[in-house]
């Protein structure tokens, strides 16, 4: 099993080497609202950008210290040449910080291609759905110009199939790992998800398929461990999973954009592909920078916690992430009303204090 998982860890830990081995032009993207199927169908390789967590030097001259670490870190990587393998980048509009990073990136980097995909902020009206279709069509046309070839229906169908396979495999792995905790470490599962955003997608899908087969044939009984649900934007650190597991618990689910939010919900391959891609984004759980109803996120967490029989919720909040910061008190209040124990862990800056992290997790897990 570890042989199958290792390449995913390697992709996450050695992005430049992974990128060098890919024989396509690479397009970086900022968040899970980037329509990867379209980028892939145009013949490019979509690669999600994560901060390398190097020291901030050049980005200091563009973004104040009260900007979140992922955004400052990605800009630092670009300005210091660590992303020179990129042919271009896609900025899906979500939060105010990504919005301004897009401008700063466009004005200060020299990559060949640049796209803003300006998503609507609300996802629950017909006019927003029509607008989503319009911007996806515009993006497709622009990708065709950049690649110098049309995106045929067959190409798009192939890409959708690959991404659906990736998502299906990750969902299946998640379910199998839940059925038998201990088979797959949380940090390994995190690497599978993140690695799938970096590696060649066909290769990733193939390897994930093999992992599904191995997990499906593995035997074992669920261990009596505490079950926690993670909520937040992104969880960039495997240390959090390790700290939870070292404290005698497992992560049974999440709503992270580096987790289930990225692989939940398939693109409907029976309808118009552009409409289907838009429909997936409108129907999957939203990032709090988007509006899909007043109680959508709290209801989702509540139902997931119940369905997964989780003992508690850990909010993993990135410091200076406003959308999650505004949602937190309301969701916490809903959990409290339902007597679901919860704790917030704020990721501040580039580094995690492992001693403090372990103490917080141990204390919380002993309480639940």
């Amino acid at each position, binding site marked *: 099993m570890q042989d199958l998982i290792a390449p995913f860890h390697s992709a996450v830990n050695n992005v430049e080497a992974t990128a060098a081995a890919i024989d396509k032009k690479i397009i970086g993207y900022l968040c899970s609202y980037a329509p990867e199927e379209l980028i892939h169908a145009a013949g490019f390789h979509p690669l999600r950008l994560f901060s390398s967590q190097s020291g901030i030097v050049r980005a200091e*001259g*563009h*973004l*104040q210290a*009260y*900007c979140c670490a992922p955004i400052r870190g990605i800009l630092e990587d670009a300005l210091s040449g660590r992303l020179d393998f990129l042919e271009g980048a896609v900025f899906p*509009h979500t*939060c*105010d*910080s990504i*919005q*301004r*990073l*897009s*401008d*700063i990136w*466009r*004005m*200060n980097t020299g990559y060949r291609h640049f796209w*803003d995909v*300006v*998503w*609507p*902020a*609300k996802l629950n*009206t017909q*006019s*927003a759905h*029509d*607008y989503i279709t*319009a*911007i996806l069509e*515009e993006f497709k046309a622009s990708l065709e110009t950049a690649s110098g070839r049309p995106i045929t229906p067959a190409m798009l169908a192939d890409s959708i199939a690959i991404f659906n396979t990736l998502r299906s495999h990750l969902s299946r792995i998640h379910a199998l790992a839940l059925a038998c905790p201990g088979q797959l470490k949380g940090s390994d599962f995190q690497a599978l998800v993140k690695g799938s955003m970096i590696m060649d997608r066909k290769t990733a899908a193939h390897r994930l398929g093999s992992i599904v087969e191995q997990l499906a044939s593995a035997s074992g009984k669920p261990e009596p461990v505490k079950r926690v649900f993670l909520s937040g934007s992104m969880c960039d650190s495997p240390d959090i999973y390790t700290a939870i597991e070292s404290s005698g618990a497992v992560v049974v689910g999440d709503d992270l954009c580096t987790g289930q939010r990225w692989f939940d919900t398939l693109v409907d391959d029976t309808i118009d592909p552009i409409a289907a891609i838009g429909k997936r984004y409108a129907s999957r759980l939203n990032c*709090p*920078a988007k*509006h899909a109803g*007043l*109680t959508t996120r709290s209801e989702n967490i509540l139902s997931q916690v119940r369905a997964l029989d989780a003992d508690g919720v850990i909010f993993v*909040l990135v*410091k*200076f992430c*406003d*959308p999650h*910061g*505004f*949602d*937190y*008190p*309301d969701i*916490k*209040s809903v959990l409290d009303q339902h007597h679901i124990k919860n704790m917030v862990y704020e990721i501040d800056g580039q580094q995690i204090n492992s001693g403090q992290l372990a103490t917080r997790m141990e204390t919380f897990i002993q309480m639940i």
Partner: protein
Amino acid sequence: MADAQTQTHKISSAGKMRELMTQYYLDALSARQNNKKVAWITSGGPVEPLVAMDIIPVYPENHGAMIGSAKMGESLCVTAEDMGYSADLCSYARADIACSVVKGGPIGGLPEPDMLICCNNICGTVLKWYEIQARYYNVPLFILDTPICHTGLSPAVENYVFHQLKEYVSFLENVTKTRMDPERMKQVGHDSYEAQILWQKILNTTAHRPSPMSAFDAFFFLALIVTLRGTRTAVTFYQELLEEMETRIQQNIGVVPKETYRLLWDNLPVWHKLKWLSDKFSSHNACLVADTYTSAWCGTITHVDEHRFFESMAKAYTQIYLNIGVDQMARQVLDMIDFYQADGLVMHSNRSCKPYSFGQMDIMEIVRKNRDIPVIMIEADMVDPRSFSTSQVDTRIDAFMEILSQRRQKQ
């Protein structure tokens, strides 16, 4: 008789302005007794349909400015933090959310809303803030979604926003159970246009040397173009204010005695330190002649069609200063530097406002390269005083003014 330029005549329209704002808040606070609906609306939102339907618009951001000016920001922000809201979140939002619960602030809290109108052309924060208030007050929320125009307004965006404007009217009609009168909307649109033209003319008067008013005055007189835009009250008041400014120009009355340096301000005011900052710059004979903030309420007038106001709202409301790319913002700053003959730029790096503040460093560099004028960046927060170091800002302003002085001596 003192030299006209050294006179410090107060702006007499200020009294009238206070009366109008007091009346406005009294009307809003007694709306229920008068069977009127109250809509809370974001500062960049289209207020004209509300005025046309006799709905009283109330601005939590204006309320936030009042809280900041009354120096009540810290305690309300702390209350919000006790409720679980991070100290890193917008202080307007924190103060308002806390105010709703404790009924505090300078006027004991805003009148409760019957509906909420959120236009996200100023930031994504308002979306979250209004979701919170919609849950708290259990009232309907309309979101006017104005996608950012990084490099221009696309037909897809314009169509989307225009479609939503029609949905906005339907929303209001549903909540009020009355139909909008198109003729009334036209009249309100005309009044809004007229007020915006007047407001721009008033701001333009500060191009005169000495400047008849400062950005600190504009921060104060702004309240009407925000809250009463689309009414004859705003038009009449701004006609009078413009006349007063023109009279001051004729009489050579400057707001800063011995005006020597002319500065441009960027970002929201530091409401809790307005007087201190005004005095500080005045002590150096420096006048903040203009700012990027108050001009936002007339900055898209070129997109407004006076005769087809409703139809032109999509273009106008989507392309306001904060909803465009940083490079476009920089071009506007350069234009303002030229028009107002600014000698320096003062940037407020505002922890509460990320879309306004991120990109400022790039604008700073563009200004330095293209206009070769000194730029200072002040770290602060518009409402929360805990992010303001008086001694540090004091020293930095002294150093900045020293640079301006040295440059002036070399010329």
